[in-house]
């Protein structure tokens, strides 16, 4: 492990640096190159962060599901580490999304928060995965905790479509997706500079996400290693 640590570290730094550059580029496109929205004006520019953060959060929860399934199947610490790390980052990005959304919602809708379907769903996601993290922190035996968390990770993920359906039937106010629509091709619905800003920012967020994920994974590895060494020496 010590041998591979150095190139791994370099790879991570590269990823981090790249994320900074791409997000800077995305912000340039979003704040300067893209025109203000015809109706909403400059406030709309927060979308260039809002959309990438929620997509990243979705990706993260999907990784929790994958990591949980793999762990139950193969019982490798690596997969459990993945699920745990992805859950933490998913909670972070969901919280960011909600904050960005509130900042946008106040001038646009006139309220910080409204019980619209998509907002509610996002808040529920935050609650589910915060619960997941609490469960992890409250089980002391490590393997037990990993198995229980994996089961919760799977149940939580499979419950999302049902929650989605129920809160949508319940109420809908959030605008329907403006870019991905059945009647038109994506680039016909949006100014090209806006689309560029969105795509570049999304790429930047993905890079940032994987940078943070690799850091968090390494942290988990180190924690496990410390525990293993302590056990080997009989120190607790």
């Amino acid at each position, binding site marked *: 492990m010590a041998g591979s640590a150095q190139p791994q570290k370099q790879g991570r730094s590269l990823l981090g640096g790249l994320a900074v550059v791409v997000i800077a580029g995305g912000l340039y496109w979003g704040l300067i190159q893209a025109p203000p929205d015809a109706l909403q004006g400059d406030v709309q520019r927060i979308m260039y962060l809002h959309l990438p953060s929620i997509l990243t959060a979705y990706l993260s929860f999907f990784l929790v599901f994958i990591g949980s399934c793999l762990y139950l199947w193969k019982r490798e610490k690596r997969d459990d580490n993945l699920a745990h790390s992805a859950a933490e980052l998913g909670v972070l990005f969901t919280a960011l999304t909600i904050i960005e959304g509130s900042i946008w919602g106040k001038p646009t809708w006139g309220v910080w928060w409204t019980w619209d379907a998509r907002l509610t769903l996002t808040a529920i996601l935050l609650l589910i995965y915060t619960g997941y993290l609490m469960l992890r922190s409250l089980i002391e035996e490590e393997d037990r905790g990993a198995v229980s968390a994996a089961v919760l990770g799977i149940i939580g993920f499979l419950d999302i479509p*049902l929650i989605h359906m129920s809160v949508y039937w319940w109420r809908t106010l959030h605008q329907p997706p403006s870019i991905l629509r059945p009647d038109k091709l994506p680039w016909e619905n949006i100014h090209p500079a806006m689309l560029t800003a969105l795509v570049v920012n999304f790429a930047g967020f993905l890079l940032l996400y994987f940078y943070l994920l690799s850091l968090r994974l390494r942290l988990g590895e180190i924690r496990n290693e410390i525990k293993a060494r302590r056990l080997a020496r009989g120190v607790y």
Partner: protein
Amino acid sequence: MQLLREAFLLLRKDLVLELRRRESLLTMFFFGTLLLFVFHFSFDLAPERVAEMAPGLLWLAFLFTGTLGLAQLFQAERENQCLEALLLSPLDRGALFFAKVCFNFILMLLVEIVVIPLFWILFNLHTWNLLPQIFLITLLGTAGFCVLGTVLSAVTLRARARELLLPLVLFPLMIPVILATIQCLGAVLRTGEIGEAVPWLRLLLGFDVIFLTLGVLVFDWVIEV
């Protein structure tokens, strides 16, 4: 068939235990009734508004009493390493899951049979003829609650402060059941029939079936020592 027979044996064990100790049932029943009084003090429940609020209040009462039951669900097994003994016996773990779901379901049902009419009496509702439909919907909602609740009760089995943790994990995942049940109850109380709420009823049924299947599948992992 074997699975059902084993589940029945385990269920009978739990029921006998409960009959002798009467801990869960009495506390749940008392708490459910208590909640009705608390609701009365908390809200201005004028007769014309009660019918509107009844679905939410009733379901809230069942949610809380049910959580109380779930927290106790594996209590007998936690003492004296009974769980380990159960797992050593050649029982299918799916049967254990099934038995626990049924046990909690029966407890909640007994509470509901008393609390729903009591609600009608205490809040002066006149729609007694709707009670069968109300019971039927509550039954489906309770089934969903017990199924997912039992899985999560087992998931949190070895956590510190598990009684506190369980609702935190359970309630967000329970939102489809909460919404669907309240919408169905509301439709029945408003119009006298289920009519417009049929999609919600389907969602509720779907939830019950999905998580019952999933529960049987994952319970092996959840409960392992």
